[in-house]
């Protein structure tokens, strides 16, 4: 019974913890950030160090073609990003203008179904959509007109007023309070930057190819003028956090497995010591040690199996619960997550592989532990053990 419950506990702990870690922000940030910024972007060479519109570039058909020619790459999204003041009634706020290709951008980050009011923009619209937090702050609604004031290309001033076509709810509260999306063409005219973009977002399926794609682009473009960057390079602090978190997670898991191993071995050891006399009696009245070992091994195995199955059955609902009702994070990590448009919650993942892997590891641990009684029986001194 003790053995069964210790194995059950081991399974519950291991799977639960792994499910949390797998679901943890590290991986979420990884995918979500990658999704939002694109895994690879191409900029004008100086743009990343000094993100002003003056370091933007004019769309160059040749460059786009060269990039698209690379095998893995499905296409590119053009963005023109810069800052402006937005003003409505008595409220003024610094905002981030994102000139985007509406259809492609929707395909990439799914903006359309985040619209909470009004409609999504089309490529040739002369209107904008803005984050719900920003709309609230500016006290502006769909159909109203928003005044924008900023700096255009090469010091030209950018002033204009655009009707609000829709309000979009961005998961990141920070972004939600400052982002304005407008069609790329409109942004180019607002900033007086014909055919200008700041980022070429490279679209491809498999994030595992990020490095390769970036390298492939850099190999074919004129790197004195342009530069391809992976999202990891674009957000190094975040990467550090993720890596640190992953390393911490591995240490935690190692410690957990050690505790589990000690627990399982401890109980097996105890059980064996407790039953030594019983074993000695069996051998003295005529049971072959081999047979006893077989039975003992089978017994331990069955107990472990019951423990593991019980553990899995117990864990599924717990993991499921925390998947549906994730733990909400607070503090620095939460902030940095929100900055990247990710909700600061910690759901678990209900992943068959986690169950499988951890169950296998525990089967190995208990399997090794099951060998101890066998040695104990083999080496047993019947007379000593009988005396107990």
């Amino acid at each position: 019974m003790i053995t069964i419950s210790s194995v059950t506990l081991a399974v519950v702990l291991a799977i639960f913890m792994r499910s949390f870690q797998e679901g943890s922000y590290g991986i979420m940030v990884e995918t979500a950030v990658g999704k939002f910024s694109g895994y690879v972007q191409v900029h004008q060479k100086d743009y990343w160090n000094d993100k002003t519109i003056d370091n933007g570039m004019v769309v160059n058909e040749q460059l786009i073609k060269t990039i698209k020619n690379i095998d893995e790459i499905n296409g590119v999204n053009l963005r023109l990003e810069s800052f402006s003041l937005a003003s409505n009634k008595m409220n003024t706020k610094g905002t981030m203008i994102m000139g985007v290709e509406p259809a492609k951008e929707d395909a990439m980050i799914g903006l359309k179904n985040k619209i909470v009011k009004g409609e999504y923009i089309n490529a040739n619209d002369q209107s904008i959509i803005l984050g719900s937090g920003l709309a609230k702050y500016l006290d502006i609604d769909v159909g109203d007109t928003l005044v924008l004031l900023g700096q255009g290309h090469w010091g030209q001033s950018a002033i204009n007023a655009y009707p609000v076509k829709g309000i979009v709810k961005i998961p990141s509260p920070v972004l939600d309070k400052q982002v304005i999306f407008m069609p790329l063409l409109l942004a180019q005219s607002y900033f007086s930057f014909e055919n200008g973009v700041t980022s070429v977002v490279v679209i491809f399926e498999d994030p595992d190819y990020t490095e390769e794609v970036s390298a492939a682009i850099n190999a074919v473009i004129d790197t004195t003028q342009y530069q391809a960057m992976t999202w990891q390079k674009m957000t190094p602090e975040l990467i550090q956090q993720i890596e640190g978190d992953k390393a911490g997670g591995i240490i935690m898991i190692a410690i957990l497995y050690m505790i589990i191993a000690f627990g399982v071995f401890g109980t097996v050891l105890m059980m064996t010591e407790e039953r030594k006399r019983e074993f000695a009696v069996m051998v003295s009245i005529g049971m072959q040690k081999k047979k006893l070992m077989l039975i003992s091994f089978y017994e331990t195995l069955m107990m472990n199996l019951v423990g593991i199955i019980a553990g899995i059955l117990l864990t599924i609902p717990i993991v499921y619960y925390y998947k549906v009702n994730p733990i909400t994070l607070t503090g620095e990590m939460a902030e940095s997550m929100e900055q990247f448009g990710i909700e600061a919650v910690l759901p678990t993942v209900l992943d068959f592989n986690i169950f499988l892997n951890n169950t296998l590891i525990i089967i190995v641990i208990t399997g090794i532990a099951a060998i101890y009684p066998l040695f104990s029986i083999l080496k047993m001194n019947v007379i000593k053990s009988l005396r107990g």
Partner: protein
Amino acid sequence: MKTVIEIKNLQKTYTETAVEVKAVNGVSLIFEEGEFTAIVGPSGCGKTTLLNLLGGLDAPTSGQVIIDGIDISTLSSRKIIDFRMKNIGFVFQAYNLIPVLTAKENAEFIMQLQNKSKVERETRIAELFKAIGIEGKEDIRPSRLSGGQQQRVAVARALASKPKFILADEPTANLDSVATSELLDIMRKLNEEENITFIFATHDQRVIDRARRVVYLEDGVVTKDELKE
């Protein structure tokens, strides 16, 4: 009379201890079928050691234990275990029933090792439980039986496989006088009616009184071998 065990100049010296202990120091004895014998002596005189040698649980330093014409100290440990299963019944001071098994399962244990059929087992156990007066306790676990009842189950276990002889080390040491006399009655009856050979190690006067042969042991040496009937 048929000889069941013959021991010749048996010696057992424990050397792991600081001082060498000659626990059994040159014992020669013959045990015959149908004996009811007590090996008697003060604590530490070597009774348990002698019994362990008789049962092949321990190997002698020198000398022979011949059962059925075979010197069991020459057998491999595998063969000795098999030999015990087929020929020897053990009764221990601490009963040593297997706690997770019921009374009946405990008694059947050796018969199962011997692959006896279910019918055969059932008949034998029913017969034995009746003979030793614990009918109705078949499905009870040892922890819920009294000491006397547990020891009777142990006797049933020892007898179940129809061994050549029973070795019992201080079987009454943990029992009160009622349970002791009941147990002795049962064993005497089995001895008389079924000609089962019993060899006890004991310093219990009640056992000595009921024994038909008493072997006195002192410091590993036989000092007296008394046939009472």
